[in-house]
């Protein structure tokens, strides 16, 4: 210890350690451990799943990116599943995003003050429902009416070049990419809503008032003042919703139709990486078992890529906003 140290705080004599120091160190170690724990867990998951999946990667090589998933012939190409995962997640986000932003704007800028809390509570309540309940509801309540709706959509679009492929022959029980997408859209709406709502709430009132003072209508104010300020937050919220949609398992497994193939027909049955694991793991052995664990690895990688992309988008948008 230096002898010409600045005057010590009151109550501490020279030569003893300040009592706060040990607590401070303990806190640092605790925080470090907590931080490291995430990395360790993530690493352990990655290592053990990859090791278990290795026989699949070895047996199929690049054929894991073909779309023949046929356990009876011991062929496991996951392209149909990757495609299904992305398609269901995309349908969910496309359906959910406008509604979520609508709810968020309504709550922050349109609704009368006393309506805001109840709406926020109700939307947050949606997030508390277990996914299996969503799945069963979709299976028993939603699927049948949807299948007749799909039939009329398919009839109406038959003959129109692109639409007739996208809205092709619907599945008779209503189990399809679309049904799964709709149910996942409901599940991610509270997530996207709550994040965008928080972001909209940070828009300075002065900017909004300035826009209104310049004669902007409410919509022009939202477009000119709220959206530019919140763009990165909206992207982040969407990406978190997308990640949630890709990882959703049981609700999708119940209504997606368990058919592993690449098809443009969103009204037909399909399958996703997570739901095939739920459906087939119990009876799987040998290569099928490693292929299913491999599906988990593939999903892990896709999710990491998406969240890295989200981070990149957000930082770029922030930087641009900072320069402007």
């Amino acid at each position: 210890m230096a002898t010409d140290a600045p005057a010590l705080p009151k109550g501490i004599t020279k030569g003893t350690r300040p009592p706060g120091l040990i607590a401070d160190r303990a806190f640092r170690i605790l925080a470090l451990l907590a931080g490291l724990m995430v990395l360790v867990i993530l690493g352990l998951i990655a290592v053990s799943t990859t090791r278990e999946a290795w026989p699949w990667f070895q047996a199929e090589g690049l054929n894991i990116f073909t779309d023949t998933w046929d356990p009876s012939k011991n062929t496991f190409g996951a392209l149909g599943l990757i495609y299904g995962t992305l398609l269901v997640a995309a349908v969910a986000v496309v359906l959910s995003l406008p509604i979520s932003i609508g709810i968020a704007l309504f709550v922050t800028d349109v609704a009368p003050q006393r309506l805001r809390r109840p709406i926020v509570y109700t939307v947050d309540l949606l997030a508390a429902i277990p996914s299996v309940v969503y799945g069963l509801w979709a299976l028993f309540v939603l699927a049948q009416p949807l299948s007749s709706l799909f039939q009329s959509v398919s009839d109406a679009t038959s003959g129109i070049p692109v639409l007739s492929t996208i809205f092709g022959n619907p599945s008779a029980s209503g189990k399809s990419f679309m049904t799964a997408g709709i149910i996942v859209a409901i599940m991610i709406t509270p997530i996207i809503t709550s994040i965008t709502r928080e972001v909209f709430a940070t828009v300075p009132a002065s900017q909004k008032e300035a826009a209104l003072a310049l004669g902007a209508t409410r919509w022009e104010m939202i477009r000119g003042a709220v959206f530019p300020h919140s763009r990165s937050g909206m992207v982040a919220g969407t990406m978190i919703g997308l990640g949630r949609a890709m990882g959703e398992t049981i609700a999708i497994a119940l209504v997606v139709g368990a058919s592993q193939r690449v098809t443009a027909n969103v009204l037909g049955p399909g399958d996703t990486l997570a739901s095939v694991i739920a459906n087939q793991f119990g009876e799987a052995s040998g290569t099928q078992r490693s292929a299913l664990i491999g599906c988990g690895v593939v999903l892990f990688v896709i999710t990491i890529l998406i969240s890295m992309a989200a981070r990149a988008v957000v930082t770029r948008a922030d930087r641009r906003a900072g320069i402007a």
Partner: protein
Amino acid sequence: MKRISVSLRWLVPAVLVVGLVTSGAAVAGAKNAPVQGGSATLNASGATFPQSYYEEVIGAFKQKDSNVTINYAGGGSGKGRQDFADQVVDFAGSDAPYKPEDLAGVKGGTFFYFPTVAAPITVSYNLSSVKKLQLSAETLAKIFSGEIKTWDDAAIKADNKGAKLPSTAITVVHRADSSGTTENFTKFLTAAAPTAWTLGSGSTVSWPADTQAGQGNSGVGQTVKNTDGAIGYVDFADAKALKLQFARIKNKDGKFVAPSVKATTAAIDKAQVKGDLTYDPLNASGAGAYPIAAPTWLLVYQNQSDSAKGTAVKNFLNYIYGNGQKLAPEVDYAPLPKSLLDKAKAQVKKVGASSSSSGASTSTT
């Protein structure tokens, strides 16, 4: 203050270490849990198809011998075989024997297959106007591979002379989850209609795109019940519970037989039983045999390191082969015929016996 901080500093690593050690011990303990005074807890997992029967038998066995607790966790045959191979359960249920290439992974040495019960797999359909439907294996194969699209197809008419069949479209319903039921059903089609059936056999097969999937036997049954013109394969107990109509299936002797407990026992009786007590009751001969029956086995190691557990397993097996067989029809499972029952009882005596190479199924380790 100082003292608290020091202990806090060590608390987290200490908790971590204790946690790791105890979780490691818990895994190890599954194999060698201490036994107090003759009581034993047996943990098992595996096939879900016989699970309701096992629960019935375990309940009845518990009344007889309250010292023994048996937990049968289900999870599927594949999980059962994996858990058994890794020695994390005391015994396991499986609807199919190990594949030869998987035997190397069985870590506990010699083990036995114990057949317990069997059950018919019904071909259930939803056609309100047709009370009695007869199908041959070829017709069934063509229906499930999507070749036959309507109920008034010539092939179905040929199986049902004189019946009035509607022109309703056929909706094929299959399992969404992989299942021993699918495996046995497709194995039957492969054996009985090798030319008409091209999708192969397995716990999941690549079904045509315009078919429907249901979750579990009850999911398939429910979809059949809700869809006019639907046909699907459903296990006997679930099909009965949902009050579905069953088709009569043409057996090897050319007779159309309806699914029943009796017709299933008749099918097992004619089946070729191998030395390790595995057998294949599918497409069995015999006038009264129902050709689509699913067998199931319990897997038990010969070497029982824990004598209390070993005794409990033997008692449980003996109970299954005694009063347990009488319980089977009550829950819509077929008891074993006498010939197989005698062989199984003889095999129980080998469990826990000092390791000689008398085991019928020897793993390659």
